[in-house]
């Protein structure tokens, strides 16, 4: 295949991928978008096979590799529970990162087959791009593995901090930049591998100090990195499809990170530097909390309240995902609807462990998406609502974010749950949320605490609704 034709077809792949993302602007067009994405990918694979000099008998190796990967990927895609989406996406990011590293190493050792020059005599522009690609790829790889382990519960979700952490990271950052510099002057194998090792190390180090509830930012950020890594390799290989895709994915991840940071009213830097919830300022609020009285109720009380309400807003959070309570919740809502109660769902941007996490879980439980609202669209409705049903959310409902300038979460946009006539708050215990901040909502007169597992409590309420 001529180089011009293949370039045009790679450009078409890029266009198809743009259409794939464009399709996600509404659920109706999204499946068409995914189809465009698949077509684009097939096109890219076919074109690259046709444009390499290939011995026909060797094609079998490729088919074997593709089939092994395809089968593994297919099984994962069908078996994975929707609650595990965050760790799945983190795991997939690590694969993109590793693939980028492998391709870059391969290009370093056989630059002739990529048209980049000869071994240790690679074109200057290509070696810079290769250095950047391999470094970002390696950071994505180890960073995503740590994110995966934290989300999967294979390591503690709490931030791991040690003295001098930031200095070490800064030092490694400088080392990486200077190694790329050295690589341009002297393309030695040692420097190339040192660059990879330093990048792997920093990927690990920048994710360990970040806590569980900041994972939406981390996953979005790694999503962005995987895009930039692909773009770096795209520049090295002079491939338009990779450059366009890398740019799309990179900016997509960056936008999602921005949305998540805004949802927490924290700067990106603040999240990345980590260690949130470990500062001493949160301790003074805890002391006063113990003496305050709390009204607690049972499933019967909750069922009675909701049955006699005319409108209910449900506020789901990560706890709903942990308890796998989405199906029970849907059942409860169906019963309420039969009693002519108007039900809607309010989703905070950072509810859950990744962007849109709650929406997918509700979709899985067959909740119609036109009953699910974002923070800005529903926040004014709480004042006219009888009951708010808070299931597995905590910090995102804390009124202290609006009233207490000393609170660590002050300024964070929150759902105005307290404006409802009554609030039902499901929680396993009185322990404060992730941010380590006490929620004054617990002590309000119109709040009824339901101390139980989210799924069990919801199921009990369903029984009492009959």
């Amino acid at each position: 295949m001529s180089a011009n034709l293949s370039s045009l077809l790679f450009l078409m792949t890029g266009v198809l991928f743009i259409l794939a993302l464009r399709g996600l602007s509404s659920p109706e067009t999204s499946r068409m978008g995914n189809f465009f994405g698949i077509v684009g990918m097939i096109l890219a694979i076919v074109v690259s096979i046709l444009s390499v000099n290939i011995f026909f008998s060797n094609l079998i190796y490729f088919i074997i590799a593709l089939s092994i990967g395809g089968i593994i990927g297919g099984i994962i895609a069908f078996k994975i529970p929707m609650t595990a989406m965050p760790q799945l996406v983190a795991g997939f990011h690590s694969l993109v990162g590793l693939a980028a590293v492998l391709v870059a190493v391969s290009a370093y050792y056989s630059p002739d087959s990529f048209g980049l020059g000869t071994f240790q005599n690679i074109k200057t522009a290509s070696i810079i791009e290769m250095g950047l690609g391999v470094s970002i790829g390696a950071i994505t790889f180890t960073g995503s593995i740590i994110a995966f382990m934290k989300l999967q519960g294979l390591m503690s979700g709490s931030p791991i901090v040690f003295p001098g952490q930031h200095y070490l990271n800064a030092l490694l950052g400088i080392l990486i930049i200077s190694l790329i510099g050295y690589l341009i002057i002297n393309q030695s194998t040692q420097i190339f591998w040192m660059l990879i090792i330093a990048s792997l190390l920093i990927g690990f180090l920048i994710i360990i100090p970040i806590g569980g509830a900041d994972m939406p930012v981390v996953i979005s950020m790694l999503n962005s990195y995987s895009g930039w890594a692909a773009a770096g390799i795209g520049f090295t290989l002079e491939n338009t499809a990779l450059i366009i895709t890398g740019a799309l994915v990179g900016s997509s991840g960056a936008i999602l990170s921005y949305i998540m940071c805004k949802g927490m009213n924290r700067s990106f830097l603040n999240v990345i530097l980590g260690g949130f919830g470990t500062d001493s300022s949160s301790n003074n609020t805890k002391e006063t909390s113990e003496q305050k009285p709390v009204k607690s109720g049972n499933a019967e009380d909750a069922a009675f309240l909701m049955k006699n309400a005319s409108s209910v807003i449900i506020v789901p959070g990560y706890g709903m995902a942990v308890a796998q309570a989405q199906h029970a919740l849907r059942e409860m809502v169906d019963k309420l609807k039969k009693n002519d109660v108007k039900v809607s769902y309010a989703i905070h941007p950072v509810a859950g462990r990744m962007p849109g996490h709650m929406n997918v879980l509700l979709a899985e439980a067959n909740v119609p998406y036109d009953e699910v609202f974002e923070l800005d669209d529903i926040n004014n409705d709480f004042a006219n609502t009888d009951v708010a049903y808070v299931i597995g959310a905590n910090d995102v409902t804390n009124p202290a974010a609006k009233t207490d300038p000393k609170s660590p979460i002050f300024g964070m946009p929150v759902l105005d749950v307290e404006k409802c006539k009554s609030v039902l708050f499901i929680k396993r215990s009185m322990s404060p949320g992730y941010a380590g901040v006490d929620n004054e909502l617990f002590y309000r007169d119109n709040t009824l605490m339901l101390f139980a597992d989210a799924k069990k409590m919801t199921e009990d309420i369903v029984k009492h609704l009959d």
Partner: protein
Amino acid sequence: MEIDPFIFRLSIFILSIFIGYFVVWSVTPSLHTPLMSVTNAISSVIIVGAIIASFSSLNGSNISFSNILGFIAVTLAAINIFGGFLVTQRMLQMYKKKKKENK
């Protein structure tokens, strides 16, 4: 003086960032999880690099270090491509079912 082809690629890159920026802002927040899984799937287009690596001067009997890395990269990218697109499809299917029930 002739323009370096790098400048053309850089132009494509910069313009694509802007396209990505506007397209992604128009994505509805309820589809942010499928957005992540589909961007993940398309970033596996890195498989084109893996394919070149796999077949670079490969002639049956002598498989080089680069070739082996290439094949591993093809496998990893394939996991991502199939896994990413299929799981996205599965999620989007859920958004469809409700639509029907609603009518």
